[in-house]
């Protein structure tokens, strides 16, 4: 309890600096929060698209039933593959006639079915990356009875690029703010240490342990960090409400993300405080 009380007193004694460091932590995490919001919504929106990531292997008409069965089981056994579905020539024609209604009159009159049979392959969640898709496609292409392989390569690429850009921007911007925040927290803690140098000297003189002497300052960093995290949460929530109301329906962040954000604030503050404590109280009990 003592470290908390003393840390709070220290913060209250330097309201401007304390506010600045809390705000800086808040802003750095707010940026991360905004991008988190973006990333979360992108992935949710694209999860459905991604789920549809499928590879279609068109089969030649010469394929026999035994060969078909063999090929299906073999492909189904790929570690990346979630399911393999066979679409026969007839089904293909039926699907086409349903989807392309303007030609529905034409299809029944065809003497030969021009559409090939195909295998529709879905990948497991962990393997819906451009690399994996391409690799599976290449393997399919090497089958004798596979005529052509199609997959939504561009889509797959775009999803991933978008996410990488969002992540990278959040990292760079949030990171720069975090550095500023750490400098501010470090300065606040350093000033608290200086303000209490007489007490520290007395504590050292009577034999307080260095842990006892240092703890209030670490807690001060922790409190600044957690407050910053809470501020970031509030700011992100406001941004979410504005977006949701003014632009389009947006999903709010999952609870674990929020918790992780606030925790990150606490850690940020504590690490910054630790640095100052190390530097300023380096000579405790040094002989």
């Amino acid at each position, binding site marked *: 309890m*003592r470290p908390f009380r003393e840390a709070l007193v220290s913060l209250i004694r330097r309201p401007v600096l304390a506010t600045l460091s809390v705000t800086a932590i808040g802003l750095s995490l707010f940026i991360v929060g905004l991008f988190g919001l973006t990333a979360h919504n992108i992935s949710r929106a694209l999860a459905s698209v991604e789920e549809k990531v499928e590879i279609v292997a068109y089969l030649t008409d010469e394929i026999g039933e035994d060969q078909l069965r063999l090929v299906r089981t073999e492909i189904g056994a790929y570690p990346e593959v979630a399911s393999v579905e066979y679409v026969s020539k007839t089904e293909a024609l039926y699907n086409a006639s349903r989807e392309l209604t303007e030609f529905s009159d034409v299809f029944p009159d065809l003497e030969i079915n021009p559409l090939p049979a195909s295998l529709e392959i879905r990948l497991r969640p962990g393997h819906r990356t451009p690399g994996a898709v391409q690799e599976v496609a290449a393997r399919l292409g090497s089958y004798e009875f596979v005529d052509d392989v199609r997959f939504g390569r561009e889509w797959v690429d775009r999803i991933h690029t978008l996410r990488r850009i969002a992540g990278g921007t959040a990292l760079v911007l949030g990171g720069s703010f975090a550095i500023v925040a750490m400098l501010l927290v470090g300065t606040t803690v350093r000033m608290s240490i200086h303000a209490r140098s*007489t*007490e520290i*000297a*007395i*504590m*050292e*003189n*009577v*034999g*307080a*342990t*260095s842990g*006892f*002497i240092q703890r209030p300052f670490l807690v001060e960093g922790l409190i600044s960090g957690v407050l910053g995290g809470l501020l970031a949460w509030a700011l992100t929530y406001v941004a979410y409400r504005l977006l949701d109301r003014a632009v389009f329906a947006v999903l709010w962040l999952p609870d674990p993300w929020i918790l992780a954000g606030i925790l990150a604030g606490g850690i940020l503050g504590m690490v910054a405080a630790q640095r100052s404590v190390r530097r300023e109280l380096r000579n405790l*009990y*040094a*002989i």
Partner: protein
Amino acid sequence: MIRFRNVTKHYPRSGNALEDISFHIRKGEFAFLIGPSGAGKTTALRLVHMETAPTGGEVTVSRYSSSRIRRREIPQLRRRVGFVFQDFRLLERLTAAENIAFALQATGAPRAEIRPKVMRLLGHVGLASRAKAYPGELSGGERQRVAIARALATDPLVLLADEPTGNLDERASIGVFELFRQLNALGTAVILATHDTTLLRRSPETRVLELESGRLVYDSASDAAARPARPSAGASPIFEFVADAADAPGRSETRQAGPEGPGGSAP
């Protein structure tokens, strides 16, 4: 209990503050540490408190040795060695009682024990009635008593006092000195570094260690102590010191009070 074995303390820029000092102070002993300004008194006390390490030789205090002690053991040592300063070093925003409680809290005393112990300590130093006074409301002598009570908070084996009466008038000095003697009678060893010759004269039977330019030039416990040949050999070293002190310039804190005056009646 406190032993200096051929202790040398060298400072890179000011040379040897102490040079080849050896002495032993037993449990419960009272010793004066005297010598002119710059002789190395404060340095010697800081070595006992392990605020600094000797550059040669070894200082041992109770079971701690300057050559083996680890950083995290120093707080434990400090609790066995109380330190009293010339300028008291009390926290102005805390009352007398709170200043003492501060030391108890800092050294992890159980909450319930703090209050009664503070009152007991204040009683020991004769300030039971001033518990709630702030340092600014206390006389110099009273402030020093609070500082002594704080130094006693961890039940030390020894009290180190660096010029504890340096900021006090004669009456207060004698009061504080008598307090040290009482505490000593109750079993706490005391090493008192001082310029104040009135105190020495008040207790001629007390052990005296005299430093000069970093050397131990006199130890009353071993009269045979190696003394450099000095022109005034034969006279008591204490009173030579008094004479030295009177000659040294810029020594405002030195009290030459008393009817005898400097260089006065040698025995």
